[in-house]
């Protein structure tokens, strides 16, 4: 046995526990779900029959699924846009000579490390229209009562706000690290050429942050498209299904509706949608950036 072969075999030997783990706990369930997506009845727990692509075709006629896709896209795009815009602005400020900037960074990052269950329940209590702190504060200053989570028109935007609050610190942290990694001589050269502060940001900082922006946009988009905990804990998908995000719809279809075959098809449709959106993000935002 050659040295190269021995090395390869050794590497695979060390990797094998992880490979076996992923095969058993990730790829095998995915394969079973894929099989179930072509079946009606109760695949996995009872009788089922092969129905071909019928489950996939049914998605187009499922009013709740279409509504859930729309709500999920609004939620995901809203979360990405607001998180990135706010994070970019705050990080641009916080890399400068701001007093107590470390304290501010810590405060911004704190929500990210709180359990999402605690965050969701805390915000649900704060936003309660009748017993919540926020309405009590508004009443103190003479402002009208608000129905953030109760009004179908505002509920999804309220969830986006909570999501932005939670992810903002993480995005700020990544942006600050990226901004600090931009070579100082680029700014010095630009200043010597007469560039002003906003020119520096627009023509140096922003373009050089594109790889970071792409990374954050992809990560936040994927997690937002898969979001379930927030609507499940805060609104149960209501009011009037306004916050019934796609993952919650899949969960309800599978476990409350016991329509496991169709729920599997819904899951795979979402998998394809996430692939498509991620590919589009790479196409739109990817820039080959080199600085010397």
């Amino acid at each position, binding site marked *: 046995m050659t040295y190269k072969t021995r090395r390869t075999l050794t590497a695979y030997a060390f990797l094998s526990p992880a490979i076996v783990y992923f095969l058993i706990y990730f790829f095998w369930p995915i394969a079973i779900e894929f099989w179930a997506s072509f079946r009606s009845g109760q695949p996995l727990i009872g009788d089922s029959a092969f129905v071909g692509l019928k489950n996939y075709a049914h998605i187009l006629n499922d009013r709740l699924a279409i509504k859930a896709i729309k709500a999920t896209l609004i939620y995901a795009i809203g979360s990405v846009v607001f998180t990135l815009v706010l994070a970019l602005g705050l990080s641009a400020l916080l890399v400068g000579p701001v007093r107590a900037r470390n304290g501010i960074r810590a405060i911004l990052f704190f929500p990210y490390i709180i359990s999402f269950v605690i965050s969701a329940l805390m915000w649900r209590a704060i936003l309660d229209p009748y017993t919540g702190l926020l309405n009590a504060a508004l009443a103190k200053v003479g402002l009208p009562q608000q129905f953030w*989570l109760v009004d179908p028109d505002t509920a999804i935007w309220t969830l986006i706000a909570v999501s932005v609050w939670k992810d903002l610190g993480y995005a700020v942290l990544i942006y600050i690290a990226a901004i600090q990694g931009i070579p100082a001589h680029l700014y010095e050269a630009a200043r010597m050429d007469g560039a002003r502060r906003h020119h520096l940001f627009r023509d140096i900082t922003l373009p050089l942050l594109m790889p970071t922006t792409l990374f954050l946009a992809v990560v936040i988009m994927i997690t937002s498209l898969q979001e379930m905990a927030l609507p499940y804990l805060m609104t*149960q998908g209501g009011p009037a299904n306004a916050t019934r995000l796609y993952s919650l719809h899949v969960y309800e279809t599978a*476990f409350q509706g016991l329509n496991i075959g169709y729920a599997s098809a819904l899951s795979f449709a979402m998998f394809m949608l996430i692939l498509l959106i991620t590919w589009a993000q790479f196409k739109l935002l990817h820039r080959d950036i080199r600085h010397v």
Partner: protein
Amino acid sequence: MLKSILKGSAATLIASGIMAGAASAEEIRIYFNAGHGYDTYLEVFEEFEADNPGWTVAFERYQWPDLRTKLVADFAAGNPPDLVAEPGAWVPEFAQQGLLYNLDDLAARDRAEFDYPGDWQDASVEKNTVDGSLYGVQIHLTCATLLYNVDMLKEAGYDNPPTNWAEFREIAKATTRNGVFGFAPNAVWAYSMPWVMQNGGRYYDPETGKIAFGSEAAAEGVQFLSDLIHEDRSAPVPVTGADYEGPQRLFTAGRAAMIITGPWDINPIRTGNPDLNWAVAPSLKEVEQATIQGGVSLMIPKDAQYPEQAWDLIKRLTAVDVEVATSLQYSMTMPRKSWLNDPEVQADPILGQFGACLPYSRDVTLELRQAGKYNPAIDEVLNGAIDEVLFANEPAAEVLAAAEDEANAILANE
């Protein structure tokens, strides 16, 4: 030396493995609702363990949606628990899929000492019977009725609670003032059904074999509720969420004069505000006196490891003395006829009022389940429709008619 140490360790490991295997072989797993871990039931488990040396009861508690998720996953994995509590609709659903243990033989065998179904109220037996066979045993039987704040009604000039919709609307308006609502509705769709049923509407019509919540009577019921919120402003827009305790919390805090709820809210109100002067009233009568019926059943999965022991626990948990003790301590209403006739139960004013609404209460989806057509997706459609009326102030007649069409399309596709 090293060899003997290794041998000894191996022997110890094997022995402990055998012992662990033996211990787990004598564990009976039970899934229960998180709110029903009553001391009286814990005592039953202790007695079971004392009477069956070597056996332990693994009592796992979950909120209903989580319990269902876990149970479905267990069914898929072929590893269900031995005994499961369910909130009212799961017995026929799972029995029709062949996932539950048929209790006919066990019930017949033990009839002399445990009179099931003879001593159970008819409604509770009906819920647990599928194609003429018993698949579950009711442990709680409940109904939702009107609770009112006696002092608030008196302040507004009313000595008695309302008995029909017109009186209800008048009192709700009269008791509404700054920060206090005359009535606090619940966001869960089933709580709209008393209004539908009181007006002669229903969820499903067995004669036509179709969903019927788009009828004029049903729409008027939901519209009445919506008008309390959006027209009279005597009721708040209900708060959506994973729990259904919002109205109870407003009532307990003295911020709502009336709510509709079941016996599960009695203790939270008593402990939350011991000074609150409140009472229970019969359900309203418009076209008819009606309200929703709920409750919990116990079922044994077909692949349960220990069905005999699970059956033994069912008998212990639903024994009359346990029912009486549980109801007196936790204000829960029970399904056994001998419980209803118990002098202590009859003497309790709160339990008595809830007991009084059981005969005219109805399980909303029972007729559809008995027809073998139940599909939770229909509940989702109705839930969304009622939300659109209550939250977005859409006209009930149009929204419910559209929802009925959608639900009937689901039925047709079945």
